[in-house]
Every structure is written in structure tokens, then in C-alpha cells.
């Protein structure tokens, strides 16, 4: 279950990807005052990225890999 399993490595990669998404400078791209479906850009972006990260986590964990 432990060791450099593919699952573990995928999760670490996802962690790094998440760190990138939720930090300067990517965050500043969405700092403007635009709206998507009436929702402020930054709010929309953070929640969509968050949901995506959770979705990927679920995918990695639940994926039946030999």
C-alpha cells in the first residue's frame, strides 16, 4: 500500500498541481471584476478548481489499478 506506488505518486503530483492553482500568480489572473453566470470570477475559479481537485482525488483513489 505504501512506497512509490503509482497512486501515491499521482496524489503527490495532484498536490503540487493544487499548490500551483491556489497561489499567486495563477490566482491573480482571476482577480478581475468579471462574472460567470453572475458569480464573481475569483469565487467561481477557486470553487471550480477546488471541485476539480476533489474529483481527481476521488478518481485516483477509487480507480481500480492492479
Amino acid at each position, binding site marked *: 500500500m505504501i512506497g512509490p506506488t503509482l497512486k501515491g505518486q499521482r496524489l503527490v503530483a495532484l498536490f503540487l498541481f493544487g499548490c500551483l492553482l491556489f497561489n499567486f500568480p495563477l490566482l*491573480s489572473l482571476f482577480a478581475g471584476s468579471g462574472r460567470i453566470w453572475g*458569480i464573481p470570477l475569483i469565487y467561481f475559479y477557486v470553487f471550480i478548481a477546488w471541485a476539480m*481537485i476533489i474529483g481527481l482525488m476521488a478518481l485516483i483513489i477509487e480507480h481500480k489499478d492492479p
Partner: protein
Amino acid sequence: MLTGALIVVLSFAYVGLLFAIAYYGDKRADAGRSIIANPYIYTLSLAVYCTSWTFYGSVGRAATSGIGFLPIYLGPTLMAALWWYVLLKMIRISKAHRITSIADFIASRYGKSHLLGGLVTIIAVLGIVPYIALQLKAISASFSTMLQYPNVTTASTAALPVLQDNTFYIAMLLAAFTILFGTRHLDATERHEGLVAAIAFESVVKLVAFIAVGIFVTWGMFDGFADVFSKAAAAPELNALLVQGGAAGNYTTWASLTVLSMLAIILLPRQFHVAVVENVNERHLNKAIWLFPLYLFAINIFVLPIALGGLMYFPAGTVDADTFVLTLPMAEQKTWLALLAFVGGLSAATGMVIVETIALSTMVCNDLVMPILLRWKFLRLTERPDLSGLLLGIRRSAIVVVLVLGYGYFYLAGEAYALVSIGLISFTAVAQFAPAMIGGLFWKGGTRLGALCGLSAGFLVWLYSLLLPSFAKSGWLPITFLTEGIMGFDLLKPQQLFGLDGLDDISHCLFWSMIANVGCYVGFSLWRRPTANEHSQANLFVDVFRHVAPGSGSRFWRGSATVADLQTLLSRFVGPERANESFAAYTRSQGITGIEQVTANAVLVHYVESQIAGAIGSASARDMVASVVVEEPLALDEVMAIIDEASQALAYSRQLEQKSLELEAATNELRGANQRLQELDRLKDDFISTVTHELRTPLTSIRAFSEILGDNPNLDLEQRTKFLGIITRESERLTRLINQVLDLAKIESGAADWHPSEIDMREVLDDAVTALSQIFKEKRIALELQAPAQIPLVMADRDRVTQVVLNLLSNAANFCDKPDSRVTVALVTEASGLRVDIADNGIGISPSDQAVIFEKFRQVSDAAAGKPRGSGLGLAISREIIHHFGGRLWVESTPGRGSKFSFSLPVRSGHFSSIAA
């Protein structure tokens, strides 16, 4: 109309329900049918992370900084991805060593140090007290707000005299609950199933309550998300909250809050307790990795709508944003929703307080009080028959003390801060565990001294730059402490340390404390070589996935003890009944039938120590076991030797593997050699039969003609001369054949005599051509020699090479029957040596024959060629000779157009001959 009595009754009823759930959970656990043994309950228990900070405080924070409340939940989401490595390792280690708290973990990692355990406990208690105060403040505020129903005003949370203050009674009620379910009995694993069930239930309640309020605000008071945001955008003072930057705080704050919360999710004592100590099965962690972030996601969706709704609904400044979750339903006269929100807030706060106080009380008892009590010889604790009562007493008192401290902080300093700010002070405190903890998990070089110095340094910076300023802001210290620094030293201003300006107080403290902490941890760890004890613990922790066998820790122990002593010792700490159970379990696990057969070996001693460690902490357990065990201390080199054993075993198995590979290769070689031998044997048989056959042909003709001569004495002279000529030729042929066979046998067996010297190839060719010129003339074959003026010398046996050239030339002569036949001998200088081509325009050799003519006794027996004209050994011998001198002999031929035999010989560089020479 809600009366105070109703609210109080409701609160008590809710806590009563918790009692019932916890009781049921414990009963089920005792019956062996756990209700918490699944990943969903595990995830919900992890959600104890969401306290009233989340329930009330997030909205308050969002009301001042937009999405600035989010890093506290993004951090744990990211950290969850690393749980696979970090948390799993912590769980595995804790289960192997019966670790029951984070203080125990760190103490145990650095050589079971009392000092370190005590230090971690003190930091944890001081760091967490504000956090508990936060919960009490939230309960108190929500209570007084509810009491004003339906009027919505910000109730003052200024403390009443203690005995009239509801918060005090709530604190004591929580203490009672925690004592009842958290310290019901002493258990080596320190697990509380009923309690976890209650915590999971609370997590459901707070989520449902918050989402209910969120839905009500978003769709009941507004027309969906878009409506909330567009109305907020219309108000200029709210619009700032909707964009990052400005009011949302800068990116540094954002990043440091993310880091803080990442650390908090694994280092907060209550998170360690639910995630590690209460973990039933480490496989549950899998699902929790994505379910827990999902929970965080769900509880945060409605934070901004509620915050914006509240800001728009109430005139600015009239209502504290921390209470919007409660005050919005109240203002809309939704009595039941308000009550649900109140209960949700209560569950968020109580869940945190209960788990946190249990975790802290375990630490205080095991790592602070017991080590001291056991050291005071005059108490004669080590002689008392049963200490389990005393242990429970200490824990119960610790729970009360922690709650009183929390209440005290709330009473003294609670007013000055919003909920989130108080919580962040605690987060920064527990972040100080990170270097010692995470470093200890992955770096074997970390030592006790390093951990002690790092923790102390980080803690002192935290105390000076965050906790003391919070007292100063509350008026309990002179405010000049903040504005002018200590004793007027400008550089020592606690929140602009060394003149560092432009950071918020949390980032500022995080920066300096981590510099001090990590710097001291690494620096002092590298200062000195680790002791034997530290080294062995470091190995057990860092390589936990390799030391999986139970009792593996006992490898590092050597000594003698008696079974009776150990059993008595265990029963003193966990009670006789549980001690007997433990020993029974031990005998079962060892596969022996009765306790009388147990031997007091290292495995048993380690087992007993780990059982006691569950009750009083690893450091004290070690001391206790040492009191009944005559231990022979291991020297560092011995420990190193034991550790090396593993790597040696690994190396040995690698050697074995290599040996077996070598063996396999040797077998293959042998098999190949055997096949070659069989092949040679077959060839030898073939050879003998061929030779015999070849010898018989001339013998037969010699004998036949001799008989004719003998039987017919009257034969005329002409005939007689002819027959005698045949006999002579056949005899010559026989002699030649026998010579060649002997020659070949000599060459092949390596017994031939070679006389290598530097030879001039042109001379060799000249001689050969001259020798054969008569034969060629007779056969009317033109012979031509082409050689460059200057050629390098080759190292070879002159006679042998001449033999080869003669053989090739006579072959060419034999196969040239056409009227205009010609044979060309060409000498060519190549990069690697000399090449001699002997080309004819005779009948040629078919491709299938080209492949075999160099084999012994293989002759081109073509109809056109007539009967074979040689022994069939010439080419074989030639090839052997050329090979011997490192050259090559080959043939190119087109049937009907002639053949070209070529051989090459390597050149010794620098030696040339020329015509002039």
C-alpha cells in the same frame, strides 16, 4: 417566543442525545460490533476540524475579506493528497508503538524523551487554550443572541461574573461529558468508539444546519447565487469583497494561511487523535482522502452568500458578522431554522472541545504529570499495586483544568478578537510541531537536542510575537509593548520583529518562528552524532514500513526479566483484569496455550512496554519496564550493527541472486560445451569414415593394378609401364592425403610448428607463380600477377602461406578447362592489412557449394567438374593457416563465370618493402 429556559433545555437535550449516541457506540464496541468501523464515520470524525470557527467565524471573516476565509480549507484539501504518505505513516507508527498523542509521538521518536514530551504538551496546552476559548466565546455569543429573539442586536459577550455566566456552565457540562466518555476506562489503545460516534453525528448536524441556513439565505431571502452577487456588486463597499486583492488580503497572507492549515490538519492534537489514535483500520484513510475535502467543500459553498446577505440585510455595524448564520434566520422570524443553526453551532463547538480536551488530557497525564510523579520517590508510586485509578484521576483533572484555562482566556482576552483571529493564534502554535514531526518521519538525522531547541525557539517566537500581543490588545499588558517594543527597543517590536514590516501578524509570526524552529532543529541535529537510543528510534519510525512484524522494536533490546514481574507491572497501570486480557492475547498471538509457558523474552518485554505506553506514555513506560527488567544497555555500535543486519541481509540476498544467475550461466555454458563435444564426436566419426573411404580409393586401384601385373606376367611393356605409372601416382596421392590429414590434425590440435617472421607477400606470390608456371603453361592457362610497388610486411609463416597460395592456384588451374582461361593473382593493400585475390574464369561454384567447400572432404562434385580432383582437405587446411595468423579466407563466385578466392592478413604497421628493397 423563545425563552432562555427553552434554549437551555434544548442545549441540554442536545448534549443528552450525544450521551445516548456515545453510550450506544460504546455498548456496540464492547459487543464487538463497531458502528464506527467504516470510512464514512472516519471521514465525519475528521470533520471535527470544522469548529465554530467554520460555522460562525468563516462568515465573519468573509464579511471583511471576501474569499480570504478559504485558505483554511484549501490547505487541508491539498494536504489530504499527501496523507497517503504522511498520515498513513503516522498511523502505522502509532499502532506499532501504542502512541496515543502527538506529544508521545514526538517524545518517542527522539529516544523516548521525557523532556521533549513535556515541552510538546506545554506548547499544545498553551497553544490550544485560545482555540477552546474561541469555542466557548462562540457558544456564549450564540446563546446570548438567541436569548434576544426576535430582536437582533449584537449581544455583548463581555463576561458576566463567573457564576452568572452561562458559558461557564456550558464549559463544565462539556467537561462532564468528556470525562464520562473520554476517560471511562484506561485502555492501551486509548480508543473511544462511543465518543467517535458522537463526533461523527455532530459533524452531520453542523453540516446540515449550515447548508440549511445557506439555502434559506440564497433562495429564501435572495433569488439564487447570481442575485446575491449582483446585488452585492451594486453596493460599492461590498464590491471590494468580490475581487481578489484589496480587501481580500494579499497573496502572502493567503499563502501563509494555506500553509498553516495544511500543518494544522495533521498536527492539531484533536486531529491527531481522531485521524491516528481513533483510526480503526488504515484502509479507511483511502476514502477519507477525497471525502474529507468534499465535506470541507460542502460546508463552504454558502459562506459568501450568507456573509453578503447579512451585510446587505443589516445596517452597517449593527450586527457582528460572526453571528450572521444565526441572526439572519432570526431576523426573518424563522424560529426553527434559527434553533437548527444554534444547535449546529453548538455541535461544531462541542465536538471540538470534547476531542481537544481528551487529546490534551492524555498528553498532560502521560507526558507531563506522570513523569514528574514517578520521579518523586517520596510518593512511592512505583510501589503502589494499582495505578489505574490515579491515572484516570489525573486525566479527569486535566480535562477540567484545560476547560477552565480556556474559559479563563475567553474571560480575559476574548473580546479583543474575532473568532478566526483567535483560532489562527492556535494554528501558528501547533505549526511549531511541524519540523520535529515531519522531519522525524522522513529524516533519520533529527536528534532530541535538535527537536528540543527547534521547538523551544519556535515556541518562544510565537509567544513573543503572537500570544503576548493578544494580551496587550486586550489590555492585560501595556499597549506600549506593541508600539515601542520591549524596553523601548525598536527592533524588538513584537509584530515588526527586527524591523520586518508589511506582513500581517500571522505571516510575520509564521515566518520568524519557522526560521527559528527549522534552523535550530536542523542545526542542533547536525551538531552531534545521535545516541544509540535516538538512532534506534529514528530507524523504527522512518523505516516503519520495513519493520512490520509485531514486536520488531524488541530487536533493540537485550536484558532479563521474569514473567510475573511484568504481569504485576502491567496490572498496576491498566488494572488486573485488563492485564490478564492482555497476557491472554499475547499468549494467543505467540501460539502458546498457557501463561505458564510464556518466556520473558525481548518480545514480551516490548509487548508489555507498549501496553503500558498506551496508559502512561512511551517515555514513562520505558522507565517503568526498566524498573523490573535488568537491561543491558546497547552500545551505539551494537545498534548500528543490528541496523546494518537488515542491509546486510539485503546485500546477502542480492549476492545469492547473483550467484544463482552465475550458476545458471555456467549451466548454460556447460550445456553448450556438451553439445559442442557431441558435435565434435560426430565430426570425428564422420572424419574417420571419410578418411577411410578416401584412403581406400587409391589403395583399391593400387591393389587392382598390382594384381593385374602379378597375374599377367606376359603383359607388353607399354601396358606394364602405364599400369606402374598409375600405381605410382595413386601411391603419391595416398602419401599426399596422409600428409594432409596429419597436417590438419596437427593444426587443429594446436601442435603444429609455426615459424612466423616478417614476410614480403610479393616474394611469396612470385615464388608460387614461378613454381606453378610450368603446369599453367601445359594447361594453356594465362597467369598474371598484379602487385603494387610498395607493400607492407606481414607477420606469418612463409612456408605455410606459400602452401595456401599454391593450393589456391592449383585449385584454379584444376577448374579452368576453357580454351582462353586465365588466372589473375592480385595483391591489394587495405586499411587493415593485405588482401590477395586469386581469380579465375573457370566453371565457378554454386552458392550452395560455396558454403561448404571449406569443410573437410567437401568437394565440388559437379557433373561438369567430373570426378573430384583433390583430397578435399586443401581448403580446410588453408583456412586454418590463414585463421592462425589472424586473417580471413573466403570465396566469391558466379557459376559459369569463374571464382575469386581471397584471403587477407593483418599488417604490422610501419614495416614496408618496396621493389627497390
